[in-house]
């Protein structure tokens, strides 16, 4: 079989057949054997993802080893990565319920994640300070609306100026909701279009294959 058939045609056919099978299952009641096939196929996604994770870790480890061997800038951080990888992998492979493994997760990984997540509040504030400037008419409308909603949400806003609450609620319930619903409709249509392009084999980038190379080969 040609490389084109194996790397391009078969994945497209599989994508189309399995994708349509999933759509049919969504709209039409299917006999149990077909539903079971679909459930099994969905579990394949988890297995493929796990395989991808292993590949990613291998590539990342190689990149860090290369960084250490070349003594690139910040190479000593790569040693921390390698030590962390070996320790957590060893503990995790022994047992994910291992208390030391859980301690590392609960007391090191989770707090760092939460701390970084909490940065969002500060970045939103600084972004708002930079963005909310009445540079033109549109920006002025945005500024006024944002200020009203902001005043509505903080407790003192209603005390200072009570009408800010119904105005803010109106802004959120009507113009804002209408805009978001318009976006959702547009996005849904975009996803349908994307699906058609993928199922007809016109869009191939998700397979990591470019038509030029296949034709050249």
């Amino acid at each position: 079989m040609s490389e084109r058939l194996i790397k391009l045609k078969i994945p497209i056919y599989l994508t189309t057949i399995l994708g349509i099978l999933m759509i049919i299952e969504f709209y039409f009641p299917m006999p149990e054997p077909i539903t079971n096939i679909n459930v099994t196929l969905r579990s394949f996604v988890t297995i493929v993802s796990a395989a991808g994770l292993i590949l990613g870790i291998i590539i990342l480890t190689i990149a860090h080893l290369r960084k250490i061997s070349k003594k690139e800038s910040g190479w000593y951080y790569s040693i921390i990565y390698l030590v962390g990888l070996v320790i957590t992998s060893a503990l995790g492979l022994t047992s994910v319920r291992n208390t030391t493994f859980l301690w590392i997760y609960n007391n090191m990984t989770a707090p760092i994640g939460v701390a970084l997540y909490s940065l969002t509040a500060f970045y939103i504030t600084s972004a708002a300070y930079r963005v909310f400037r009445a540079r033109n008419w549109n920006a002025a409308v945005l500024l006024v609306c944002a200020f009203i909603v902001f005043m509505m949400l903080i407790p003192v806003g209603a005390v200072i100026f009570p009408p800010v609450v119904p105005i803010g609620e109106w802004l959120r319930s009507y113009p804002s909701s209408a805009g978001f619903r318009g976006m959702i409709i547009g996005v849904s249509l975009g996803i349908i279009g994307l699906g058609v392009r993928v199922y007809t084999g016109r869009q191939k980038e998700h397979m990591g294959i470019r038509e030029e190379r296949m034709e050249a080969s």
Partner: protein
Amino acid sequence: MSVIVAGRALGLVVLVIIVSAILWFMMRAYSGKLPKLRRLPAVDIIDEIIGRCVEMGRPAWYLMDNVRMDTPSVLAPTVAAFQILAYVARSAARLGAKFFVPVTQGVAYTIANDIVEEAYRAEGKPEDFDPFGTVMYLPEGADRMYILNNMWSQQIAGAFLLGSWYHKAIIYTENAARVGAVMLGGTDTTHNIPFLVAVCDYSIIGEELYALGAYLSQDPTQSASLAGQDIGKFIAIIMMVLGAILATLGIDISSIFSI
């Protein structure tokens, strides 16, 4: 046993109409009849950003945030972001920009790696592609620290933030803005669209994420599919107007949604 799952008949009818319209426009494109499409401003901006990075000798980054391809709501914007990545990577390879794509999921990493590698090959510069550095797998969680640190140390000059974006949208865009990077942002995650629109220099909103990929593909049949999507918009507008009139007249037809 009913033929169709209850409550999904109307959705199926609308889906069939929209898909038929898209296929019809694609078939017309095969025979050379192309619909007139407005040029998306983002098309020119991609080359502008890459060109700026080359002039300044600083890297361009392509960030996709959540790329969990086993989650249906994330899969579609990720696939759209991959299509745009193919064009951006080619542009970076052609113009000689230092290009970096961090990815936080294994499957998405392999795909992104192949796309970028092929882009460099297609431009005849495979030697510029670093298999361990151009596209990098960063475990979810660790990616934020790596990206924030390297944004400042490398002083990136351009950033593309496309795909499915959540809270990282504001963290990355704000830092990229502070280091002076020009940004193109776009997501279909409705609650994060405002952040990308507000902070990024250029933005594509909602469905433009899907349209841009098709537009950049230079494949007339893909571009033609965008015209088919407009049929769906007309249906949505008609249904909204009709619904508003019926609701004003006090006529309840909500039972048709349970068929």
